[in-house]
């Protein structure tokens, strides 16, 4: 009862939060993928082997604040008006994200009663960009209606990376109440681009008291875009497709930029029915050292226009005012292309749940097997977060797990995040002998028409899962 009270107290506080993640696969004890989000998860199998490239395919994309329908509504031909309205509606905290993961190899086996070892390789693409509202307005409307208002360059922040991850994890059952786990990761970078700490403003002010109409000021501009993995492909014009593919393959197999990371997780059984979990993924760092190119634009400058030295002297060449002006701008607003190594942090993710099991448990009638009680039903709350350049993107999921048979179960979930308040998801998993398939999709209400959905995500996979009989 105390557990239930705590459970509902927790729900009442946390349902006001927002977020994003893979909530349908977290804390599903019958699926090996649960170890990827919580290496300290409770698991109910003794081994697994994923079908290469098919054990997990994960795709997700989202945009807070605007949908494809908002822009491309076919019943209204005035697309430019809708673009303008969308730009005005979005804020600089809105963002766009795309994440893809493809499990290339996944394997795991129980070493003994306490330890489960899992390992594998997956490829990941992660793209994340905040909406640079001020720059979008400047590009789409200009400065005419925004005199005296600064356009803020710090709103431009984006990251994109493609990498391969090699991992090895250990799940350790400390005692009947506590399971802990850790996963070491080796990142092999393929591409990276990031621009996250930009600053500076551009302002057109009315020049009251001055001769010119306006004073245009670029103040403390400092824009940096770091890239790795692009310069060589761009420069090698004679590269054939085969050579480029070989280069990318080499990078994905530890031949490019490297990084290391760690996942940590734990599960604690408060009592037979009530469990809490917590996990942190991708506490990781990438060292971008090879094939690096950085672009920097920085400085401050202020102008009222070109002021000629009236009058022009006869028999003399005209003074190159424009060249002088350009030289002055170039001296004060400089651009550089460098090859400085840089460091990027992987987007750290965290998940924490509390789950309450209820309903009839499956307990085999075999006194030689030590199996823990499992429940037909479970209700849980999951708080997830991903660290992004301007802060943590949070989500809150309430879920219900149902085991229809020991080999067939599903999860229904409702998630509140930055994308929407109407995110209903469903995951189903079925095992035929040892062959398991699962399919999970978030934001089902958006599936009848993706164009009107702010986000969607899909995971599916197939693998062999071996259990004690």
């Amino acid at each position, binding site marked *: 009862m105390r557990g239930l009270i705590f459970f509902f107290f927790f729900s009442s506080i946390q349902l006001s939060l927002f977020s994003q993640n893979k909530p349908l696969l977290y804390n599903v004890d019958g699926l090996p993928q649960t170890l990827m989000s919580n290496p300290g998860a409770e698991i109910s199998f003794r081994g697994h082997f994923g079908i290469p490239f098919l054990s997990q395919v994960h795709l997700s994309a989202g945009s807070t604040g605007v949908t494809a329908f908002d822009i491309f509504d076919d019943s209204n031909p005035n*697309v430019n008006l809708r673009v303008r309205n969308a730009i005005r509606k979005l804020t600089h905290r809105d963002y766009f994200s795309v994440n893809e993961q493809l499990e290339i190899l996944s394997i795991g086996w129980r070493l003994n009663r306490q330890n489960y070892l899992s390992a594998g390789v997956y490829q990941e693409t992660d793209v994340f960009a905040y909406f640079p509202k001020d720059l979008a307005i400047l590009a789409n409307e200009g400065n005419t209606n925004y005199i005296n208002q600064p356009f803020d360059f710090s709103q431009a922040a984006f990251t994109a990376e493609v990498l391969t991850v090699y991992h090895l994890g250990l799940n350790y059952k400390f005692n009947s109440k506590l399971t802990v786990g850790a996963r070491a990761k080796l990142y092999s970078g393929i591409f990276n681009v990031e621009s996250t700490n930009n600053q500076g403003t551009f302002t057109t002010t009315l020049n009251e008291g001055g001769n010119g109409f306006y004073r245009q000021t670029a103040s403390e501009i400092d824009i940096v875009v770091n890239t790795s993995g692009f310069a060589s492909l761009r420069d090698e014009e004679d590269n054939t497709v085969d050579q480029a593919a070989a280069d990318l393959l080499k990078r994905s197999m530890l031949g490019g930029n490297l990084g290391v990371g760690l996942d940590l997780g734990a599960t604690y059984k408060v009592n037979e029915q009530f469990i809490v979990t917590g996990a942190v993924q991708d506490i990781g760092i990438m060292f971008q050292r090879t094939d690096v190119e950085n672009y920097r634009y920085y400085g401050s400058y202020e102008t009222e226009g070109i002021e000629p030295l009236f009058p022009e002297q006869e028999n003399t060449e005209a003074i190159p005012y424009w060249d002088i002006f350009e030289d002055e701008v170039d001296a004060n607003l400089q651009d550089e292309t460098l090859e400085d190594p840089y460091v990027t942090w992987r987007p750290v993710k965290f998940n924490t749940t509390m789950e309450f099991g209820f309903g009839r448990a499956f307990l085999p009638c075999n006194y030689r097997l030590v199996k823990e009680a499992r429940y037909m039903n479970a209700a849980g709350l999951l708080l997830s977060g991903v660290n992004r350049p301007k802060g943590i993107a949070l989500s809150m999921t309430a879920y219900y797990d149902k085991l229809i048979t020991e080999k067939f179960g599903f999860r229904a979930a409702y998630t509140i995040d930055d994308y929407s308040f109407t995110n209903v998801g469903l995951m189903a998993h079925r095992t035929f002998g040892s062959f398991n398939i699962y399919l999970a999709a978030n934001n089902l209400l958006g599936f009848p028409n993706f164009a009107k959905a702010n986000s969607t995500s899909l995971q599916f996979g197939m693998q062999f899962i071996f259990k004690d009989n």
Partner: protein
Amino acid sequence: MKKNAALFHIITLCCGVFLTGCVKDVDFGQANDIVLSPDIQSNLVLYTVGEADFVDPVTKDIHTVIRDTVRLEFLDDDYIQNDLNSVEFYFRNINTFPQAFVSRVHFLSASGRKQFSINYPISPGSSDNPVSTERIEVMGADRIEQVKNSITMVVELEVQTNEEAFTGDLEFASKGLFKFEF
């Protein structure tokens, strides 16, 4: 058992829903119609002249016409040549000379050929009563090529002499409202 079968059917139905997910009611072809249309306000040229600027530094003679030339190199840039739709030039003179002036602003091509001129009279003023003269010239779609063909701006002042003492200041400021469609 019946309950399990019902659940199975519900899940199968849901799987069916998300496997048949689609995109509708949108026309992505409209992406081709998207244009960015910024209106950029920018100062162009400004100056202030006094009576000394009309005196020849060598002969000390008074010139009734003075001029200066400014190359506006940006008019040759791609974004001007390809995407500029119209320009609204705005000129303002504030005169404390008791003489009237004629202001002529000529836009010349790279070869020095005149593309267009904006000429207007400047009313006389006094040190106690500076007089402002403003002129707006809209270069719409029908004349925008003249702007695109220009690279040099020549500003010229001609004094309309009279019997009043030739003393005072004449301020000139100009700006352009450049309308683009990218």
